[in-house]
């Protein structure tokens, strides 16, 4: 039930516009709504490089969001504002964290 009504409402109410680039093709972006948890700063494993980490939630849907079956953390990119109101920067989707209740939750660096 939540996946059909709650998740879309949450995303619609608290979401913002981002651009999903399947397979990293920056000429074929899909504008969708996403809830973004910014600045979960982390330390990357590559030579202790700091990485700018965000957690993103979108609808599990291949038109209004990103479906759990299509997301590819090896290639997909996401255009998002690093701070609210800024223009989008293209970042790498690095890991799927959960796929439940009609939402796909993933990490972007």
């Amino acid at each position, binding site marked *: 039930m939540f996946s059909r009504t709650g998740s879309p409402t949450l995303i619609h109410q608290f979401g913002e516009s981002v651009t999903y680039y399947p397979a990293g093709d920056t000429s074929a972006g899909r504008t969708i709504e996403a809830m973004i948890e910014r600045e979960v700063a982390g330390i990357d494993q590559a030579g202790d490089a*700091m990485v*700018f980490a965000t957690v993103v939630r979108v609808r599990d849907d291949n038109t209004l969001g990103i479906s759990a079956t299509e997301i590819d*953390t*090896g290639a997909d*990119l996401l255009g998002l504002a690093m701070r609210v109101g800024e223009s989008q*920067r293209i970042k790498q989707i690095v890991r799927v964290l959960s796929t439940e209740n009609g939402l796909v939750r993933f990490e972007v660096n």
Partner: protein
Amino acid sequence: MPAVFLSPAERIIRELVRRLESATLFSDGKPTAVEVVRPNRDASNWSPKDNTVLVMQGESARLPGMDLPGNPPAVAYALTLTLAGFARQSDRSTLPDDSESNELAGVIQRAVTGGDADWHTFGGVALDARFGDVATFPRTSDSHSGATVELTVHYRVSELDPFEVRS
């Protein structure tokens, strides 16, 4: 307007970035240029995309054994750099994950030398340079794959002026 001074370390790194920007990978059957990044303070200027090379500066450690006497004397340093190459394969790929990392490490080293016997001087700024360990990223998470190449560059400066390169 004050004159702009570039320290030997900064000159070496800029030359290193210039060389790395010429690197090309062929892992997908077509040439792909690498994206070279020096991270900014909050790391917002980079993302671990496929074929990204991160240039990270370490310390400039003193090398007393390579100092030269004189007045003023020349003091020597060893600048440590870490070059981290990121490789990302599709979630559906069945290829070995290390293959692209291995190619990336080789491409990084080849780009740094440029096939030039005098690559180690970085345009006359450095005395010597040598590669250190080459390692694939540790398998601690599923987030990133790639390889790091360690590079140490030796240089000497005047004791009175750290911007003046001494041979």
